[in-house]
């Protein structure tokens, strides 16, 4: 029995077994998740003032479901996310292949330009979009659904596809160029080599990049907030306006749904980006 509790003595570099470090990390992990967990748990709380638990209910989910404008905002956000994911995955993959494959003058400057949407403050990009769509192109108001969402979608593509490019580019950095040469050596042409050898290797990066683009688009508040025209409603903007008034279980319920979607997608993306076991060192 005692064997179970016997542990090897700590080495000088066994920092991960220092008790105070473990307590510290555990406390931080709890603090990181506590607010989100309470949000999720109290979305099932049968009370409007959600500090005290008054019993389990799903009525706020029903209420959220029956809130037409909330549902409309949700559908809009999903539509924007799907559309921008498709476009930004294609654009991002093309850029990634270009950066992986070719050398050209000012390549470093070009890469820096591609990274700009990632690094500049969101608020700057947000107000730029506001100015662009309201003063230059005009909002696609009055266009048929889903085309009335095209302004937000275009903005989302602009800030998501550089992320996709980075993810795919990082994946391709591990590609053994001899695989490509082997394929050609065995008689395959460029096209066959791309689809039979390069793309299968690239695929996890493409999927991870697409999931990333989807979550980024779904999560974005600031840019969407500024890009939404007078009457396009998106989920974060709707939640924002609800939150400004009060904390209600209905918002908790809607948020919980979004949290679950993002967490699942993120977990899948992380799995795909994990080091590939099929690779030969």
């Amino acid at each position: 029995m005692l064997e179970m509790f016997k542990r090897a003595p700590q080495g000088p570099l066994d920092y991960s077994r220092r008790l105070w470090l473990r307590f510290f990390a555990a406390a931080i992990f709890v603090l990181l998740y506590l607010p989100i967990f309470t949000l999720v748990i109290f979305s099932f709380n049968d009370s409007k003032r959600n500090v005290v638990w008054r019993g389990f209910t799903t009525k706020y989910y029903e209420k959220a479901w029956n809130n037409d404008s909330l549902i409309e905002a949700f559908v809009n956000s999903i539509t924007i996310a799907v559309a921008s994911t498709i476009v930004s995955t294609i654009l991002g993959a093309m850029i990634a292949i270009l950066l992986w494959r070719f050398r050209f003058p000012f390549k470093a400057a070009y890469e820096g330009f591609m990274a700009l949407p990632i690094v500049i403050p969101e608020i700057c990009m947000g107000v730029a979009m506001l100015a662009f769509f309201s003063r230059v192109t005009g909002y696609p108001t009055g266009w048929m659904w889903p085309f009335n969402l095209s302004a937000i979608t275009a903005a989302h593509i602009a800030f998501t596809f550089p992320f996709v490019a980075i993810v795919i580019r990082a994946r391709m950095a591990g590609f053994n160029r001899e695989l490509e040469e082997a394929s050609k050596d065995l008689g395959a042409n460029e096209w066959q080599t791309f689809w039979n050898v390069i793309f299968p290797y690239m695929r996890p990066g493409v999927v991870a990049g697409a999931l990333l683009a989807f979550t980024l688009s779904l999560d974005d508040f600031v840019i969407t907030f500024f890009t939404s025209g007078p009457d396009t409603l998106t989920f974060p903007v709707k939640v924002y306006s609800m939150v400004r008034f009060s904390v209600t279980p209905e918002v908790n319920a809607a948020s919980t749904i979004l949290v679950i979607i993002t967490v699942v997608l993120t977990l899948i993306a992380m799995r795909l980006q994990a080091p590939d076991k099929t690779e030969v060192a």
Partner: protein
Amino acid sequence: MIPGTAWLVLFFLAPLAIIWAISFGENTSLVKTEITGTLDNYWRALSDVVYLKIIWKSLWISLLSTALCLAIAYPISFLISFAKDKWKPLLLMIVILPFWINLLIRTYALIAVFRTRGFANFGLEWIYNTLQLDHLFGAFEPLPLLYNNFAVIAGLVYVFMPFMVLPLYASIERLDKSYLEASLDLGASQSRTFWSVTVPLTMPGIVSGLILVFIPMLGSFLTPDLLGGTNAQMIGNVIERQFKAANDWPFGAALSFLLMYVTFGALAIRSVLSGRKSGMEV
């Protein structure tokens, strides 16, 4: 190449260029702005005490929050990179996952924690009453945790801390652990080893993390908007107000370009600092 570049030029560079142009303009009517080449907007931002105070406050709040992020993230990154290999991905995931949850939702979750009748005060009251302090000092007074600078700083740290872990973890992970063994072997204490070997060798990661976190904090809008009171506003909120309520686009544009210049400056510092360490790049 062409489609991606064209997209960025049209939907990113062009909008920024418009804002840049507007920052040198004047409002002529409610919906018209004339580009006159004036520098008044920049002058106003850098001379009016009201805005100087906000810029100053944005800077110190961001700097303090960044420092707090480092203080929390470094031990965490350290622990993860010294953990057993099979635990690393899980621990990293635990830290990173909140970062992917909607910023708005995370901030909203904090409101529920911090407000007068929120979980934090509720918990404090419970402790207060359990210790029977109410007999000594009277009934529990809820602490004002929300709508002040404290809430903004706590919110920024909460929101951006995971982002700090990534570069720190990468550089600690890359650190050859035999340097630490060598230092201990040569007679240095654990803390001496930490300050003289670990910190200098992971400095590129520290600098990267500080700057990657500082930039979005300085430009943050949502966190001070929801958690801060009327006097806990940051530069992002002022920019938003110029473009929405106040309808003074030229001034808002000038402010956002000032923010961009600070961003570029910070990025330049980062590339200089990381470029110099080409021997041990991170």
